[in-house]
């Protein structure tokens, strides 16, 4: 018995270094990113916490996500956020969770707050709306922190800045960062340029970018790009000989 125990200890000593290297390799790939702490236990409950610790992190996270979906149908934003927090913390590499959590808060909950008929004061409704925007932004940003290789989250963040905050500088930054990634959608670099065009003082930069994309070939010569390029040519007073001939849109 003692010899067997000693054999296990020797094996433990031999494997420990290899396991540490393997874990470091996984951390570098952003695997095993779930942080087990007391706040997580409070959010998901003790039994779920123990189950998640015992190797069933994925199924618990999905259970919480399904629960969050049920709460969404019941329009319980607060409890829904707690469930989504639990799911995203348990599965921080799951893009769908971050993407939808951000969307629920920044789009659905914020609109519901503005249309809240139980709150007669507009100032408080606006305040609540801004709170939900901040929560949505927080999901997108934390999602990116855990998944810096995800162009999807940068795209969603850029759209949020553009559509909700109307902060074109931040939107351009988000789209631009996403466009640098290898799995980026083909339109993202153009989206970044369109946003730059809306930032006062950076029109020349936007024009140069859009002109470069235009010269890349027919694949890039899309209606929005042509329209933006035309507007910028007028705005920057580009000399006629340097202007790109923008074909007028065909009438239906």
């Amino acid at each position: 018995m003692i010899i067997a125990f000693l054999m296990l200890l020797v094996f433990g000593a031999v494997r420990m270094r290899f396991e540490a290297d393997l874990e470091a390799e996984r951390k570098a790939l952003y695997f095993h990113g779930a942080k087990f702490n007391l706040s997580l236990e409070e959010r998901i409950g003790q039994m779920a916490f123990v189950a998640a610790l015992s190797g069933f992190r994925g199924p618990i996270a999905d259970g919480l996500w399904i629960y969050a979906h049920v709460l969404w149908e019941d329009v319980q934003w607060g409890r829904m956020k707690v469930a989504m927090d639990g799911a995203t913390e348990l599965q921080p590499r799951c893009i769908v969770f971050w993407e939808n959590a951000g969307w629920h808060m920044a789009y659905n909950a914020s609109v519901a707050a503005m249309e809240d008929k139980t709150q007669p004061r507009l100032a408080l409704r606006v305040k609540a709306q801004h709170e939900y925007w901040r929560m949505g932004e927080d999901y997108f940003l934390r999602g990116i922190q855990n998944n810096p290789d995800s162009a999807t989250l940068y795209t969603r963040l850029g759209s949020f800045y553009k559509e909700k905050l109307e902060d074109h500088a931040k939107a351009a930054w988000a789209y631009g960062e996403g466009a640098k990634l290898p799995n980026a959608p083909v339109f993202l670099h153009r989206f970044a340029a369109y946003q730059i065009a809306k930032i006062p003082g950076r029109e020349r930069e936007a024009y140069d970018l859009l002109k470069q994309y235009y010269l890349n070939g027919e694949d890039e010569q899309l209606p929005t790009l042509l329209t933006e390029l035309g507007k910028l040519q007028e705005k920057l007073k580009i000399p006629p000989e340097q202007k790109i001939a923008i074909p007028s849109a065909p009438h239906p």
Partner: protein
Amino acid sequence: MTATATAPAPSTRHQIFSFTRVTAIASNTLLELVRLKVFYFLLIFGFIVIGISFFTSKMTFQEQHQALKSASLGAMSIFTWLLAVLATAMLLPKDIEDRTLYTILAKPVPRFEYLLGKFVGVLLLLFIALSLMSMLFLAVLYFAEQGAIEQTIRTTPPQDLPAALDQVHRSTFNSDLLPGIVVIYFKSALCAALTLLISTFASSSIFTVIVSVIAALIGHIQPIAREAYLSSGNAGPLAKAFFALVALAMPDLRALDLADDVIAGNVIPMLLFLKTIGLGSTYIGVYFLVGYFMFAGKEL
């Protein structure tokens, strides 16, 4: 006139290791386990997989497929782990109780072959169980994908269709599903080897099951607890020694935790997968050998 020539005596030379004997014990073990109707759990698995696909039908197809994969791979992990622990825990006590063990070992069957045969029988059972669950899961996932494709074709403008269909496909089948299932198999095989090791010195099946379950839980929790505690800066020399002892003696089952990352849609590099499998195989081999060492010295 009588024939005095005698026929040559048949060769009775005993082989030190016989693959045939191991195969015979393994197939008998598998047969015994199958006769216990262990595959009835597949019904529960079927309910879970089909149920979750109906329950999540209101969600977006990404969320739906995510939940289906998570529930299925999670259920596969739980069922193979339970099967590994429960099937292995009863092997030796049952053979001792039925006195089959004495009958086998009274023949020229080395204890190593007996134990290996029993273990291979459990490994085969786990393989069959996991294969059946995988087939069921992949079939349901295929139908879910077909449903999503039909819906996408109906609702997406033609110019966006290729990208949308690619998104559907990526949310269902990806090349990392198979490595995820393979890792689940190795993890359950590791738990079986650990249970076999415990059963070689345990006094009863219940003791083996309880200790194996606790060992598996400690195996999952101890690396997380160690990291959290040691990084807090509060660890004294006694605590450090305790954690070191636990880390040396208990398996690090988190090292074989790839299924959750597969569920999340992560790409598993081939080298990482091979290293994980290699580590799992080493664990299985070492635990089996230590188990044999214990069993060889056991007074029966």
